């Protein structure tokens, strides 16, 4: 009787563990493709862009341009360069009609978060890679995963559901900001980072 109980109990436990650790993350996150296949490395090599700042510029008033607007791309891609499918998509679907590319931003924080690149890059002297990893040297776009409930990019929570193993570009929850601020002895109030 006791043994049977233990087995049945263990069975329930196992099913729950599998469901929770394996099935649940797959259900919770949806994968989305970027609108265009973009290669950071190609751009760095072929067009001689050496510095992230050349495209992801920091304006004089401290505002951050983020992903460059269409105009920047059109500087070189006003007509097709090369034969790739991505090139055709870029020129025909976006540059020619003048639409902005609807990039899916991995590190996008919600509207209630105020994050200043100027303060982190200029004052705290953080290098881009410390938060964004070496994505700037990558050869392909990553798959973008979005949380069905919260609508956040998966990078915010991180790929590890337990949050124990994390790549540098992962984990941008408030607690992660707080941890770093604590290590760096930076004290900010709620509205220091919230809008």
């Amino acid at each position, binding site marked *: 009787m006791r043994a049977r109980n233990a087995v049945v109990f263990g069975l329930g436990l196992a099913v729950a563990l599998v469901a929770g650790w394996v099935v649940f*993350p797959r259900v*919770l996150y949806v994968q989305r493709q970027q609108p265009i296949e973009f290669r950071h490395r190609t751009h760095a090599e072929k067009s001689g862009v050496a510095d992230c700042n050349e495209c992801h510029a920091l304006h004089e008033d401290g*505002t951050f341009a983020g992903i460059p607007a269409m105009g920047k791309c059109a500087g070189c891609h006003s007509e097709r360069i090369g034969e790739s499918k991505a090139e055709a998509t870029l020129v025909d679907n976006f540059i020619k009609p003048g639409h902005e590319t609807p990039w899916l931003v991995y590190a996008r924080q919600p509207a209630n978060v105020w994050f200043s690149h100027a303060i982190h890059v200029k004052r705290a002297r953080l290098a881009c890679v410390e938060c964004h990893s070496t994505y700037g040297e990558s050869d392909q776009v990553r798959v973008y995963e979005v949380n069905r409930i919260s609508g956040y990019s998966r990078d915010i929570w991180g790929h590890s559901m337990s949050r124990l193993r994390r790549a540098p570009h992962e984990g941008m929850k408030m607690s992660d900001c707080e941890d770093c601020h604590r290590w760096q002895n930076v004290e900010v109030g709620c509205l220091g980072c919230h809008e």
Partner: protein
Amino acid sequence: MKVTRRDLLVWSAGAAAGLMVTPVPWKLLDDSSIWSQNWPWIPQPMRGPVEVKQTCCSLCPNGCGMRVRMAAGWPVGVAGVSSHPISRGALCPLGFGAHQLNWHPQRLRTVRHRGIPSSWSQAQSAFTRACSEGPVVIIDGYPGRAPSSVFETFSQKRGAYRVAVGSESRALAPYESWGGVPSAALGYDLENAQTIVSFGAPLLDGWGTPGRFTRLWAERAAGMTDPQLRLIQLEASLSRTAARAWQWIPLRAGSDSALAAGVARVLLEERLVAARGPMPPLTVSDAAAQTGLTPDAIRDLARTMAARPPVVAIAADHNRAIAALNVVLGSAGARGGLVRRSKRAQPWISADPAIASVRAMLIDSSVPWDFAPQTDAEVFRFAAWDGGSSKADWLLPAPGFLEELTDVPTAPTSAIETFAVASSLVKAPPQVQNAAQFLCSLDSSLSTTEKIIHARCQELFRARKGTVIGQEATPLAKFTSVQKLEEQLWKGAVWVGEPSQPESLRCELKEWPAAVASSHPESWLTRWPEAVLPPLASKLYTESSLREMPEKGNA
């Protein structure tokens, strides 16, 4: 093996225990709270580059300097321009919500013919037909702009050009008939006045260019027991201006003319001023009886007025007695009184709401909605917002806030000439055009607004007078080319003319004007006649009860 009820219970217990050490409950708890922080149905601001543009407000003829913050190409915030010589950094309360006006639910986006959706081509052919069949009147609510010039030229051949202006401009009309100077060229030299007597004019509540008098009052009068600038408010009720005036004298509503006459009589009888005008027929005691004041109060008022010259009386409306009082005081054509600011202004003819024997009437979008003509003519009304007029046969969608290019001529009550350009900062909806564009499309011989503005800039440049106030003040004579000047003006700089010559206004007054029953309407800010307000204004004033809302509720 038979599954018992007991097995199910034990299994559930195991599953429940297991679930607690998976991310499921904790992640769901976290995500659901994050969901509640980012509900998809809550609108979010646009993301995009932010820039600040300087321009002038063209929603009313006061043309306040405006700094517009734009995000992703849309205006997201409005502030005053402190270097603007007239508005001095202030705006009217409505101005702060002006950037939302273009999205007002009453925004007109399509041509409507008697309430039925129509098209521009039909409106054009209807107007062309009307022009060929009889005279056409064009009514302008904001004279002096480049579009006004288009209207004038168009109507010279085909009918008449009329203006419907606000009460502040109408108050200047008596001087035009007595002094021969067009009222469009007149202004109040408030900056040099020491005593200002307002007959119900809402000086601190949206009168003239809001920033001009409020700034002046704040610097020279606010909170002072013996202010450099004495503001005396003569008004039946304790208005916002009366509440803040140095003196508030409540008088019977509609008795302003009698009081003006009574005061003038005391001034002349007691020789407080040099006799410059006729003796009013009204005795002081008659005036007292009509106004509800004591004769002594009227005498005191007259003495107070004479005590600190320059003094100027400001009427809320077309009141000839108050104008005559200014003549008696010697304030018409004097420093600190009424001055002529421009030599070029043309007289305009006021629009009479009852216009008969006209085939068609074109009403510009600058005409306020309370101008409702009584006419049999076919009415073509341009408007950015539907103010609820039922009288228009054609309702034609006009550009809204910051959507059209126009020049900004001198504000109605200003003592110095100004000129600015309000460029089109926002893309107008596709179906929208203004009256000047409409007329130009019918008559290709007309100059476009753009060309007229260019011509005006050239004229300014040739005259080489005045100063251009942009980031810094530059004398116009220092500009090397008209392009440079235009560039500055299009970026929101203001040209300011030279100080006025007070003596150039001379008023001859043979006899005291017959009393006109004055019924000055309440200030547009106290009781809004217009139905279209920034939605924020409607909301805030409902919630604060600071102002009465128009009877009919609107969004």
